[in-house]
């Protein structure tokens, strides 16, 4: 007979087929745990089953880090591993690398149940929320001492305000005992005395974040007299502590921003206050100075000396006016007098006599202006500039003088 193969050949051929299959090399399988045996060697043997059937599974001791809980009969789990052939028994099985509980099942139900219970107790009520102080000096942090969360918080906090004291309580944030560790951290920081506490961790699966869903953590946050900011995972992750905390931050970085004020902004604010006060006080002072000047001027004006001065001034003015008027009048009269003197001078007979004319006076003492007033042989007196002559008229004859003008007579 040709083409006869050994058992070994067939089994190893099938095993090769399995191992070359891309999908079977890395596969997630979900089902209910049954026939679970923790072997003394550290290996775990179990089966996954659903309504249709079962598949044999093994998790070797070397892969146990991929399992963070104790598997029990009937648990819904998801196993990551590869499917291969166990040649000795001639059967295939699932070699598990990681096993997680099926979140959409048990964990989620547990979460919802606790959330409902705590909400009914009033632990999420807004009236219990303590306000986060806007200007803190000491910030307590409960998180793992390694990892992105603590680094993010320290970076953001010291960038915003390097003068704020950060106090880290290094806690376990996942696995066995994590919840107790977080509770101790919150209590220790409260006792130490801080202004605000940030409790959280970076992102992860629902199992990773589970410690923040534990009732003891929720109670510790609720009982803490220091305001607590929750900072678990990413924006989309929600845990019980987010509902109980006084403030929920979407991420650890955001928590640092919410907890720590910006030193620069506070200093700017102070500078603004300072300049506002300076401006106001100097405005007040200059207003007071102006008022002082104004009042001094008014007071000066109201002084009796001022009235005296003005009266004296008025008197002076009146005197000046009076004097001027008087002087004017005097000058005027003097002119009139001068005029009269001139006129008198012109009218004086003496001036005529001095230019050679004579004044004739008859015996009766009257002035003689024509020949008819004196008879021949009659006596008269001729007045000259320096004396008089007693005379007798020898003869009287009329005479006519050429171009005698009456007008000219006045100007002589």
């Amino acid at each position, binding site marked *: 007979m040709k083409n006869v193969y050994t058992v070994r050949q067939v089994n190893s051929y099938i095993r090769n087929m399995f191992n070359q299959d891309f999908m079977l090399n890395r596969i997630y399988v979900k089902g209910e745990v049954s026939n679970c045996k923790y072997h003394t060697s550290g290996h775990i043997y179990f089966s996954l089953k659903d309504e249709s059937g079962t598949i044999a599974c093994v998790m070797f001791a070397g892969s146990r880090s991929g399992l963070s809980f104790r598997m029990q009969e009937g648990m819904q789990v998801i196993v990551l591993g590869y499917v291969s052939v166990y040649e000795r028994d001639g059967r295939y099985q699932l070699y598990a690398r990681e096993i997680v509980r099926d979140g959409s099942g048990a964990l989620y139900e547990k979460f919802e149940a606790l959330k409902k219970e705590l909400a009914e107790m009033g632990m999420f009520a807004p009236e219990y929320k303590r306000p986060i102080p806007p200007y803190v000096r000491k910030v307590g942090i409960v998180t793992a001492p390694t990892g992105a969360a603590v680094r993010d918080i320290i970076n953001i906090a010291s960038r915003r305000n390097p003068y704020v004291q950060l106090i880290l309580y290094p806690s376990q944030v996942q696995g066995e005992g994590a919840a107790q560790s977080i509770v101790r951290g919150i209590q220790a920081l409260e006792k130490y005395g801080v202004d605000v506490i940030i409790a959280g961790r970076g992102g992860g699966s629902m199992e990773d974040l589970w410690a923040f869903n534990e009732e003891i953590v929720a109670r510790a946050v609720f009982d803490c007299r220091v305001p607590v900011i929750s900072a678990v995972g990413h924006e989309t992750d929600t845990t019980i502590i987010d509902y109980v905390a006084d403030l929920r931050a979407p991420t650890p970085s955001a928590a640092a921003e919410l907890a720590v004020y910006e030193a620069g902004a506070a200093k700017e604010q102070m500078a603004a206050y300072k300049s506002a006060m300076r401006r106001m006080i100097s405005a007040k*002072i200059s207003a007071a100075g102006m008022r002082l000047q104004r009042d001094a001027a008014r007071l000066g004006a109201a002084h009796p000396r001022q009235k005296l001065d003005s009266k004296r001034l008025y008197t002076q003015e009146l005197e000046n006016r009076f004097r001027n008027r008087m002087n004017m009048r005097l000058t005027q009269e003097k002119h009139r007098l001068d005029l009269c003197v001139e006129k008198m001078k012109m009218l004086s007979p003496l001036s005529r006599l001095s230019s050679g004319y004579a004044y004739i006076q008859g015996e009766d003492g009257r002035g003689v202006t024509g020949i008819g007033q004196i008879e021949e042989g009659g006596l008269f007196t001729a007045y000259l500039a320096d004396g008089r002559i007693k005379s007798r008229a020898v003869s009287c004859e009329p005479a006519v003088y050429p171009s005698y003008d009456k007008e000219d007579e006045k100007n002589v």
Partner: protein
Amino acid sequence: MEKEENQSLDQMFGQLEEVIGKMEGEEVSLEESFELYSRGMNLLKQCSQAIDEVEKKVLVLDENGDTHEF
């Protein structure tokens, strides 16, 4: 002057705003203004002290309640 040493920066900022508000009022006398001004300056000094401009190292709190550098 009242006890202002133990107040938070928030409270002191609040008081500063109050002082400035009063100073802005028309009816405040010059003497009162000086008083308010010196009070405001004093508050500002305390604000600066509250900010406490010394860079802090991160401390780690251990199980015994003791702290040491991170």
